[in-house]
């Protein structure tokens, strides 16, 4: 039914070359997974691997764990996932970056349910590693075109009225490796630079009111306290709308990876504008054109011009089951699931195709449908063992329909790196395995 793909993309050869540099034991793993595990949870995996399912614990027998006592309270003062789930971890793709300090890791979307990403699984993006900030020595400076430049401690920030919102956080480079061709072999790597958390903090508009913004103010510079001193220019209009100064994530203090003790958060916008380890906000009348808004995070088009300040993460979606990590093991009835999101508001509908976009069926939206948040969708289907090309297509409340790859490439070419939100295709094979493909 489908023609064979041509020779693999050049980058795959690069993956293989990279793999050949590591030792044989690791190489085997690398080639199988196209990744190396980024630390953590290793003990759990080894624990799980030493066990095997025993008939002795299955009906009609009484399982081992029902005939003894388990661990008591505060055995783990801070609870951890079951050791049997030690494979649900962030992973990185070593060849993407020069080192692991200015690098990125990916959220394991295939293994997650609902819309909230557990804090320990939120993808990481650092430009100079994670700084260790003593909260007692933390200060946020707010100055520039203001009546009263002020310095805030964490206690100060917590004295202002707080706001809580569930929003996605996405790197604009999510899927950026796929502009020219499909090359990542897992959902974790095609779409894993996204997560969705409950964020709590004070509205930036409240702080701006406190310092008194001068009439000529138009822009705000947000700057991090990490070695990169990550900086982005943010229009005052956004800052007065829904920008948060965040100190809590999923009900607890921000994780170090997410900017502990304080980050700025711009709902619906590319993740790098939500500067972590925030130390300074300066109000000005023009943008600063710093490195992360000129050299990086600008979208180069086919005609050689580039879009700047392309903040919004437009409507997107992906099927999370089935996917490469979660193949179909037998014929029968299933519930397809996926995630949709839009930086412009709520998801209005999601359609699903099994035939590469010829015909579409409307999926149902499950659970919470919130603006600028991950939204879960599902569709019942019966698999008869036939190959299929599975796609999902989101429409948001502004009426924006997720584009096909052909439409996106026509508009932008293939050198944009950022903001790739095209309809994604999974190829379901007759044996139930799933691969990442691009189709005409």
């Amino acid at each position, binding site marked *: 039914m*489908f*023609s*064979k*793909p041509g020779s*693999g993309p050049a980058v795959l050869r690069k993956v293989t070359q990279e793999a050949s540099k590591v030792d044989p034991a690791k190489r*085997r793993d690398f080639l*199988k*997974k*196209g990744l190396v595990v980024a630390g953590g949870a290793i003990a759990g*995996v080894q624990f*799980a691997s030493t066990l095997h399912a025993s008939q002795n614990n299955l009906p009609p027998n009484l399982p081992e764990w029902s005939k003894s006592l388990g661990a008591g309270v505060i055995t783990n003062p801070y609870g951890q996932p079951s050791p049997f789930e030690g494979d649900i971890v962030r992973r990185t793709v070593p060849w993407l970056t*020069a*080192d692991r300090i200015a690098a990125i890791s990916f959220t394991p979307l295939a293994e997650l349910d609902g819309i909230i990403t557990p804090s320990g699984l939120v993808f990481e993006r650092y430009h100079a590693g994670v700084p260790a900030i003593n909260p007692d020595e933390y200060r946020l400076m707010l*100055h520039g075109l203001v009546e*009263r*430049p*002020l*310095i805030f401690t964490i206690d*100060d920030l917590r*004295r*202002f009225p707080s706001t809580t919102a569930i929003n996605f956080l996405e790197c604009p480079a999510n899927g950026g490796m796929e502009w020219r*061709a*499909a*090359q990542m*072999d897992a959902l974790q790597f095609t779409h894993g630079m996204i997560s969705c958390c409950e964020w709590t903090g004070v509205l930036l508009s*409240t702080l701006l009111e*406190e310092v008194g913004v001068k009439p000529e103010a138009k822009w705000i510079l947000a*700057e991090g306290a990490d*070695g*990169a*001193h990550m900086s982005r220019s943010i229009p005052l209009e956004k800052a007065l709308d829904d920008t948060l100064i965040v100190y809590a994530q999923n009900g607890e203090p921000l994780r170090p990876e997410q900017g502990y003790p304080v980050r700025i958060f711009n709902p619906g916008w590319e993740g790098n504008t939500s500067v972590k380890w925030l130390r*300074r906000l*300066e109000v000005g009348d*023009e943008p*600063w054109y710093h490195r992360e808004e*000129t*050299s990086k995070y600008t979208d*180069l088009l086919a005609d050689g*011009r*580039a879009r*700047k*300040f392309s903040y*919004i993460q*437009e409507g997107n979606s992906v099927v999370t089951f089935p996917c*490469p990590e979660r193949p179909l093991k037998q014929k029968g009835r299933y519930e397809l699931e996926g995630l949709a999101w839009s930086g412009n508001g709520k998801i209005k509908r999601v359609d699903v195709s099994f*035939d590469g*976009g*010829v*015909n*579409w069926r409307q999926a149902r939206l499950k659970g919470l449908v919130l603006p600028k948040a991950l939204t879960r969708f599902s569709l019942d289907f019966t698999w008869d063992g036939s190959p299929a*090309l599975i796609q999902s297509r989101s*429409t948001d409340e502004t009426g*924006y329909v997720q584009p096909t790859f052909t*439409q*996106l490439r026509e508009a932008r070419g293939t050198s944009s790196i950022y903001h790739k939100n095209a309809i994604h295709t999974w190829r379901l094979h007759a044996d139930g*395995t799933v*691969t990442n*493909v691009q*189709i*005409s």
Partner: protein
Amino acid sequence: MSRLAKMVYAGFFLIAVFTAMPILADTGAYGVGTPATAEEIAGWDIDIRPDGLGLPPGSGSVEDGEMLYEEKCASCHGSFGEGVGRYPVLAGGEGTLTDARPERTVGSYWPYASTLWDYIHRAMPFPQPQSLTDEEVYAITAYVLYLNDLVEDDFVLTADNLASVEMPNRDGFFFDDRPDTRNTGCMKDCKDPASIEITSEPSIATLQEDESGAVIEDVVAEGGQKVYQQACQMCHEAGVAGSPMTGDKAAWATRIEQGRDKLVSSAIEGIGIMPPKGGQSQLSDEEVASAVDFLIQRATKE
């Protein structure tokens, strides 16, 4: 006047002063936060704008910049700005922005020279951010501009002339005008099934467990790994500037033969292009030794 009377008098005086002051201008609605002094702001306010706003006084020449660049930048960015490994290419790429593989460099892509000064001062050199003096930043900025043929070799960059350095791609950017696609959301017979071809598909096998279900990763010298990540990884992970790559058995074998003590002393004192303690002078000798142990472990494990 008695002391008590003096205090009472002073108290009334202060109350009178405070009530006379326009309170609304001095605090916001919540009265939370501490006024930022000019000195405090000056210490942290480092941003530079294209018009030169924020630049400290100073200057630096291409000539001075060359030596500094070679010492502090070339190990990652290459002597000609060509980039080492995956570290950023700084020069070249003119006229490639419409190519299939465009090369985005300072000269070919960056719209403003101020961004270079700001970023070098803000975040470079990578392992020792904000360690450069203002004069050094001027000189290195001048040299990177020179590497891109944007200034002559006798050029001296100053606070006054930086804003007038014209970058070739200055007008290459435009404000976000999306949405730039329009999908109609067709539901039925949207295209000819016969026209569908798979245009690309990764050749690597689907993500799956190996037989044991185990993920291969050794238990490591934990403290050593942390120090390694902080001080050593940046160069040794990729073999930057001829450094032996982490886990490269052949490269490390001859070094390990010299004994652990020699490796530890080289790491503490520096060797070749590697600065003492990998440039992280705050580390104790013991911490550096633990990183050496980690590197030895990685180079000798099966």
